[in-house]
Structures are given as structure tokens and as C-alpha cells.
């Protein structure tokens, strides 16, 4: 008797029992279930939520792998052990040492994120007696990519529990939440432990421990140095490839771009949101560049450096590109109408760059911009729907006149 039959018998045996959802989650992971249609149409298309989520994870994997190498690279580069990388395939970057140090640092983040998050999901599924939904598969992969490399694991644990319970489960689980769970987790860390989420000590592995020592290293993000009025000191191509300090998986604009194109090609990610967010960010960047060229703001202003950043370079620095491709497109928390998606995306782009420029203390704006627009998404949809409703009402009026 094969595994298939054994599992089938176990499933029948545990049907209706308290632990059934937990068993089914593992069973359906191994096997596409034997469910058949029983109402309405008799056939269904091939896609289910697992397949959909799997595609997003596939789009994220290059960022994770790059993040692992980059963690080691930034560490050894700051110590002065290696030369700066030249070109995307530079051996200084793709070295075994970089990988092993990065893996040692990053994999625990992944394990904690998945272990704790799925643990909470399973617990809620068993308590509420519904199946374990797949939403956390993506959230769990996003979380390690958007936190600083040296974040203490206990903080991450607390944040994940908070994010999953308050961000998602209290609203009813996957599909019902208002805020993007991964960003809720990051926002929790951001406001609860700000010293671990900003500044010049958390972005490069080992920097925090080295404080006060003679060989202290620091790794400021580009946004951080710009906010303090310094120039960023990185080559444009380095920024595009992602050889810069930052949250674990958000640095490589190149890989994010490829991931985004993959999501658009597979029709899983909304091209409307991605395109409109980029346009919004570019537009706002242009406006700020215009303010500088009109000389309304002088070089002494604390906003000068970020406002003076070339408008298109905003997409290369910080987490803007990552946020646009992987977080703003979360279908549950984004606008759900096609027209609404344009407005939602443009506002995310505009707000991200605006917050960046005007908030020098915490210069990364994309997290707050997306969370804010998550809150406004239902309102946008409401007005889009009103348009449809008014059109329908008008149709009657035309008739009765």
C-alpha cells in the first residue's frame, strides 16, 4: 500500500477531529486533494492558492539567495578583508565565505519567520476549525528579507506573533486582513525597537558588536547618509546590482526587477500596481528635482540631499523597488478594482518618495506609504464602485425622461 492510500485512510480517520486541519495542511502539501466539484460548474482551472503563492515564493528566492551573499559581502568588505566587487558576477561577491557567513545569519531568520508564523497559523486553524490557508507562505518569506541582518531572533519572534495575530487572524485570516501582514511585522519592529531598525549599525553583520572596539565597523544605508546630508558614495551599477547595505533581501534592484517581470508574466502580480507605483515615485522625484532647480530650497536645507537625488535613482536605493513589486501588490490589502489599483499604486509611489524626503529620522518611506494606502484601499474601491453604481442609475434616468 502506497503512501497515497495510507494518507487517505488517515484523512478519513481524522475527519471532523480537532487536529484535522493540521493534518490536512501537511497532506495537501504532499498531494493535491481528491476533492471533486459538487455545485455549479463541473470543471475547474488548474490554479489554486498554493500554486499562486508558490509562484510568489519563486519570485522571491533570487532575492533571498542574493541577500545571503550580500550579508557576507558587506561584513567582509566593512572589515576590509576583501576588495569591492566589480560587475554583477564578480568573484569577490559570489564567494563561499560570503555565502557561509550570510547563510549562518539569514537562515535563522527564515526558520524563525516560518516556524513561528506557521505555528500561529496552525494553532488558529485548529482552534477555529478551518483549513490552514496559504497566505503565510509568502509572508514568511518576505519577513526575513525586510529586516536588518542582525535583528535579535527574539525580537523577530515577538514581531511575527504580533503581526500574524493582530495583523491577520483577528480579522479572520488570509483574505480578510486590512494591513499587509509582513509590513505589520516590520512596522511593529520599527516602532517597538527603533534602534535595531535604523541608524548606521544594524545593516552590516557584526557592526553592533563592534561598537566601541578599535576595529569598529559601520554600514550606513544610502538613504541614511543622504538624510544626513552626505552623498551616497556608491556607483550607480552597484546600487542596481544590490552591492549595498540594507535589509536582507531588498538591495538588488536587478533581481527585484526580474522577479517583478516574472510575476507580471505569470499573471500573479498586478502590473497595474507595479507600473503606477513606479510612475508615482518617478513623478514625485521629478517634482522634487524641479524644486531644487527652481532654487526654492538651498543647499543648507536638511531636505536638500534627498530632494536633489536624481528622480530615477529613488528606485535604486532603499526598499522602494522591493515594496512596489512584492508588498504593494498583495491582492488582499491592495485596491481590488482595476481602476482603484492605478490610484492606489500612484499614491504609494508619491507617498514613499515624499516620506523619504521629509522624514530624515527614518528615511525609508515605502513601508509607511504601503500601510497607509492599505488603509485607504477600501475607500478607493468604494468610490470606483460608486462610479459603476451611478452609471447604472443614470441608465434608468435616461429611460424615464
Amino acid at each position, binding site marked *: 500500500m502506497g503512501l*497515497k492510500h495510507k*494518507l*487517505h485512510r488517515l484523512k478519513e480517520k481524522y475527519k471532523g477531529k480537532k487536529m484535522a486541519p493540521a493534518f490536512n495542511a501537511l497532506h*495537501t502539501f*504532499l*498531494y*493535491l*486533494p*481528491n*476533492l*471533486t*466539484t*459538487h*455545485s*455549479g*460548474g*463541473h*470543471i*475547474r*482551472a*488548474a*490554479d*489554486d*492558492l*498554493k*500554486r*499562486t503563492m*508558490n*509562484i510568489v515564493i519563486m519570485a522571491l528566492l533570487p532575492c533571498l539567495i542574493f541577500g545571503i551573499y550580500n550579508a557576507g559581502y558587506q561584513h567582509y568588505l566593512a572589515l576590509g578583508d576583501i576588495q569591492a566587487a566589480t560587475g554583477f558576477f564578480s568573484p569577490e561577491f559570489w564567494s563561499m565565505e560570503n555565502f557561509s557567513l550570510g547563510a549562518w545569519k539569514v537562515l535563522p531568520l527564515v526558520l524563525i519567520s516560518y516556524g513561528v508564523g506557521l505555528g500561529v497559523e496552525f494553532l488558529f486553524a485548529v482552534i477555529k476549525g478551518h*483549513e490552514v*490557508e*496559504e*497566505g503565510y507562505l509568502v509572508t514568511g518569506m518576505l519577513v526575513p528579507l525586510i529586516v536588518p541582518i542582525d535583528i535579535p531572533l527574539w525580537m523577530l519572534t515577538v514581531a511575527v506573533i504580533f503581526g500574524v495575530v493582530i495583523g491577520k487572524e483577528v480579522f*479572520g*485570516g*488570509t*483574505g*480578510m486582513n486590512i494591513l499587509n501582514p509582513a509590513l505589520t511585522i516590520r512596522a511593529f519592529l520599527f516602532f517597538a525597537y527603533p534602534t535595531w531598525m535604523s541608524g548606521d549599525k544594524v545593516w552590516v553583520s557584526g557592526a553592533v558588536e563592534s561598537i566601541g572596539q578599535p576595529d569598529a565597523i559601520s554600514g550606513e544605508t544610502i538613504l541614511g547618509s543622504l538624510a544626513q546630508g552626505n552623498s551616497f558614495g556608491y556607483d550607480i551599477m552597484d546600487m542596481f546590482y544590490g552591492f549595498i547595505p540594507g535589509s536582507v533581501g531588498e538591495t538588488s534592484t536587478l533581481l527585484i526587477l526580474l522577479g517583478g517581470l516574472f510575476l507580471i*508574466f*505569470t*499573471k*500573479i502580480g*498586478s502590473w*497595474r500596481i507595479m507600473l503606477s507605483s513606479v510612475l508615482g515615485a518617478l513623478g514625485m522625484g521629478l517634482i522634487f528635482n524641479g524644486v531644487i532647480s527652481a532654487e526654492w530650497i538651498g543647499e543648507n536645507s536638511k531636505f536638500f540631499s534627498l530632494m536633489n537625488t536624481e528622480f530615477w535613482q529613488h528606485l535604486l536605493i532603499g526598499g522602494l523597488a522591493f515594496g512596489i513589486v512584492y508588498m504593494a501588490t498583495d*491582492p488582499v490589502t*491592495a*485596491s*481590488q*478594482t*482595476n481602476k482603484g*489599483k492605478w490610484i492606489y499604486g500612484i499614491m504609494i509611489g508619491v507617498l514613499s518618495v515624499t516620506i523619504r524626503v521629509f522624514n530624515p529620522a527614518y528615511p525609508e518611506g515605502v513601508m509607511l506609504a504601503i500601510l497607509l494606502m492599505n488603509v485607504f484601499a477600501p475607500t478607493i474601491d468604494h468610490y470606483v*464602485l460608486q462610479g*459603476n*453604481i451611478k*452609471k*447604472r*442609475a443614470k*441608465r*434608468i434616468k435616461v*429611460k424615464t425622461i
Partner: protein
Amino acid sequence: MSKDIKIRKGLNIRLKGEAEKTLSNAPRSRTFAIRPEDFHLIIPKMVIKEGAKVEAGDILFYSKSQEEIKFVSPVSGTLTEIERGAKRVITKITIEADRQDMYKDFGIVDPDTTSPGDLKKHLLNSGCWPFIKQRPYDMIANPDIVPKAIFISGFNTAPLAADLDFTLQGKEKQLQAAVTALSKLTDGAVHVSVRTGQGSPFSGLKDISLHNFSGPHPAGNVGTQIAKLDPVNKGETVWTVAAQDLVIIGELIISGKFNTDRVIALAGSSVKTPKYYNTKIGAEVSTFVNDSGLSEDNSRLISGDVLTGTKISPKDHLGYYDNTVSVIPEGDDYEFFGWAMPVFKKISPSRALTFSWMFPKKKYDLNTNTNGEHRAFVLTGNYEEVFPMDIYPLQILKACLVKDLDAMEALGMYEVAPEDFSLTEFICVSKQPHQQIIREGLDLMYKEIG
């Protein structure tokens, strides 16, 4: 006056086992059956008892809420069984057929000269009224309301559905009589939609307003055509009649008989020789299914097409409105890492390691597996790709789920029928039962408002 209308949003589902265009006579069925569940929202009140003899056209039962809507026997024979289900609801009425049909004579009428009132009475008395359906609510038409227009779809785009150009061949006389009669019952036009650039039995008819449609499924659904031609507003009613049912109405007008002869398609990948059969409403499906033979034992029989039909057993009978019987394999098996593997043998609207987009002409052998578990609504924007009406499908489904009557009404519930959501249901990643949600929503509205 003919218009060309192009439907852009939609999806053609190409399946294996399309019926070959040859016509056979199905053997005479021993029993015939009427399932009242085919008549949504009708509560039957029986007129005759078990053991009574009937002719084709003799009344079996009427609608409890509207007594003038009568349902008659499709054949002559003996009423053998009235099967009842939970709460004594009548689920099936079985008639053992005579060798030869005796027809009750309703008299020949000339639709051009008969008054609308008399025509209506004629259709009601002869049992032809149930073929006329109405929107809103997708139910049998209320005879007290004069509709603003009548809509007939002259072609099918649903997967494996009978080709109307074939099944209606040579029935032009009946079609003409029926549309002329129907045109008397409305203030507006009788809109007939046919496929652009294709000859149709409807093409030469008078008393109709002919429209050309092109594009993928659901271009052939009457709901799509109503939405493009003259959508239903609040307070308005339109009628729809299926093309195959026009033949029965036409036959009544021409010959005075309630003759339920119908050409049906037997199709699907489980059928050995899929083709067309001459049969009657309510006939045992085994009469023609056994004739063609099944290549797969573990199959699902469907009276109707695979997107909107009813699941039946081999002992069951052809549904009242159906002109297709589909047989496809059951999908009650597991698939190892089925959610992660690349998919070549199933249809998908996405490209998520699914490759049906590369082979738009390929025919697929789909089974009844849901390909995943039921989930909350997650993805957005995908329904709109296959939904040609000016309605927000996700939002109206959610309004139905939360029973928000105001939102349902405002978002266009009067315009839709469950079948309009068969494609969104097919592609739904969350495997939500769209048609059931819409049906329950319509029933709720009918109870509360209608």
C-alpha cells in the same frame, strides 16, 4: 437591422469529446421523468395521482404560487411514481411511456392574427410557458408582466455544448412561428443573436431583431447578449427563451401538439462515440448513453454543459431545458505535489507554471477535480478578464455572501443569472462556488424585494 458586437473578455474552454455532427435516433425510452428542481422557485401542486393515464400535453401539476403556469406530460403513458424528498417536496415525477405517443390537441393558431392575450393563454394552457424565463431572478417568467424585450441566443459557446446550427437544422418553420408569437407578447423587440459570419437557421426569420456576436465564451450566453444590447434596469423585466425550446413552442403553434422532440448532443471525453441524438425531454439518458458507450467507468454524467449542467446518475433523465449531455471523468484522486508541478494537461488562465497559454488550440481532457481546496477570496482582477458585463464580479459576489441587499441591487444583481458566473467560477483560485452564491443571492432578493 443587424449589429456586430465583439466580446473581448472571456475564455474558450476546449475539451476533448466534441459531438460529431451525425444524427442517430435514440431508442424509445421506457420511462420519462420531470424533475421540479429544473423549475427554480416553483412549488408543484399535483393535479393527477399515481396510476393515472396521460396524453402528451396533459397537465401534471401547476405552480402553487401562480396557478396558470402549468406543467404537462412530455409523452403519453401512465404516471407511475411521484418521488418525494425532505419535507415532502416533490423531487421527481415518473411516467411509464406508451409505445406510441398520443397527443392532446390544443388547436392550431395563426400567430399573426391571434391577439396577445389569447396567445399567452394558449402557451400557458399547453404547458409551453415554462420555456419562457425572465430576468431578474432567472426564473420562469411571470405571465402578468409585459417584458421590455425578449432575448434569444442563437449559438452556444460553452464547452462541448450542442451546436445550434446543427440541432435546429430544418426547424425554421417552428422557429418562425415561435418568434412571431413571442413578438406579440412584448412591447420591445425579440432580439436574436447569432455568430458573426456564420449562417444560422435564424438568419432569414422575420419579426426579430438580429445581432451578430463574435468572441470567446460567454459570447453565446444570453446574459452577455442582454448586457451588450439592452441591460435590465431596476423595475424592468426581460424574457429569455433557449433556442431549442423555441422549436417546441413553434411546433405547438403549427400543429397544436405539445411535441418535446429534441436533438441533443452527447459529448465528453468519456463517451466512446460522441454524437447527436433524436430524443425527447425527460427521456432516460441511458437510452443514448448506452448506445454510444462509455470508455471510462468512473465518470460523471451531466445533463447540460460542463459549466452549468446538473450532475445525474445513469438511471436519470434528460433535464427539461437541456440539449447537451456531457460525460467527463471523475477526478477523485490525489496528485503528488500537484500544486507545485508544471501543468500541461489542464487549462489555466494564468501562466503560473501552467502552459495552456502556449497551446490555444489544444483540446483538453479535464476531470471533475477541483484542483485545490476552498479558500477565502484572495486574488483580484482575474475574474474581470473573463467577465464581459459592466459589473464588478468580485464585489457583487461578496455583497451576496454578506446578504447586503442594497449593494446587490446597486451593483447590478437584476442583470445576472448564475450561468453568467460559470467562467469566473471555473478560473477561481479560491474555488468559491460562484453560481451557488449568485443563486442564493437572487433567491434572497426575490424573497425580500421581488
